[in-house]
């Protein structure tokens, strides 16, 4: 389910992008799932077509969805390599933290701060 809250300080395109990205990452939306067309989703959520288009474009740039011409937009298999890359980066980060002697709580706080700055899926900026 996608929820767009008009009263939220997060822009609607970001609310949409973050929710779709989270559902793709946690497999609620399986690889190959066909997403609604931009026009359809814009009508459903009472958003401008450009707003949904921007969210889709960002998801496409992140490799989470792919557009196959007139057939529509689909959840991309690229989402899985992206997760694997994230795991590899986390292992490298964990190794670095161990090498410089930073404790786990501090290491997690650094990651959370970094995610808050870059805006991870599902997190308001």
């Amino acid at each position: 389910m996608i929820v767009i809250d008009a009263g939220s300080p997060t822009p609607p395109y970001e609310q949409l992008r973050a929710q779709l990205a989270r559902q793709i990452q946690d497999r609620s939306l399986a690889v190959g799932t066909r997403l609604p067309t931009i026009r359809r989703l814009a009508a459903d959520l009472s958003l401008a077509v450009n707003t949904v288009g921007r969210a889709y474009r960002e998801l496409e740039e992140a490799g989470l969805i792919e557009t196959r011409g007139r057939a529509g937009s689909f959840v991309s298999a690229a989402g899985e390599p992206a997760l694997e890359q994230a795991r590899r980066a986390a292992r490298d980060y964990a190794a670095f933290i161990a090498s410089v002697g930073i404790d786990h709580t501090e290491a997690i706080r650094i990651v959370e701060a970094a995610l808050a700055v870059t805006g991870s899926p599902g997190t308001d900026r």
Partner: protein
Amino acid sequence: MRQADHTEVKQWLTQRGLADVEPTPLLATRLAVRRHAKVADSLLLAAFLIGAALTHALSLPAGGTSWLPLLVLAALVVGLLVAQWLLGGWVRRADQRAGGELPRRVAHPVELGWRAVLGRPHAMFAIATFAGALLLALSVLPIADATLRNGAVVVLIGLAGTGVGIVLQLRQVLASPAVAEDEASLTADVIMRVEDARALVTPSLVWSLPAIFLYGESLGWWNAVSVALVVAGVIALCLVQFKTADVGTTARRAMATR
């Protein structure tokens, strides 16, 4: 929200497995629009049947040689289809207006196609009903009775118009925006979509047309077949409804994204 509306919405929700959902003005508005549309649709069909039967009966003494009754009947069919189309459009517009007032909008992340909303058994049933009526009308055309031939032409016009009308309205039902503010109202939205789609393919005009119009100077096999088509159709519809999941389950299945 009035107490009567609250009770009605609660009953609707309970019957569809959403007993724990609290009735909202949004649901009350949408259900009221559908209720009025259903009454108007029944009245339209009744008026059409009376008008068609009168035109047909009054034209019989002329021996079926005049084109005027045929034109009037065709106009009645077209008028009914246009009125039904406008009625469908009125329901969608009322939904959109109700949705436009929501501060929070919710949608399903997956496109719901006809398979998920209507289901294959209902689609097959609709096609079979149409094919049966169409074949009957076509097989009556070579018969020498001019009144019967005129009737068959009207049935064919009616079936073509109804077929196009159903496809267009079904498209509208599937493509109309979701009107929901939370998970419960999104489920209710899909349930309404399933009910609207099933109501569209449940034949009324398709059963009525052959029974009214395939009536010549004498009774023939076509009269027996047109009655048999209705009886077989009713049995098939009961079986389809008995065998397929209820609207609540269908809607929840359609909403399952995996």
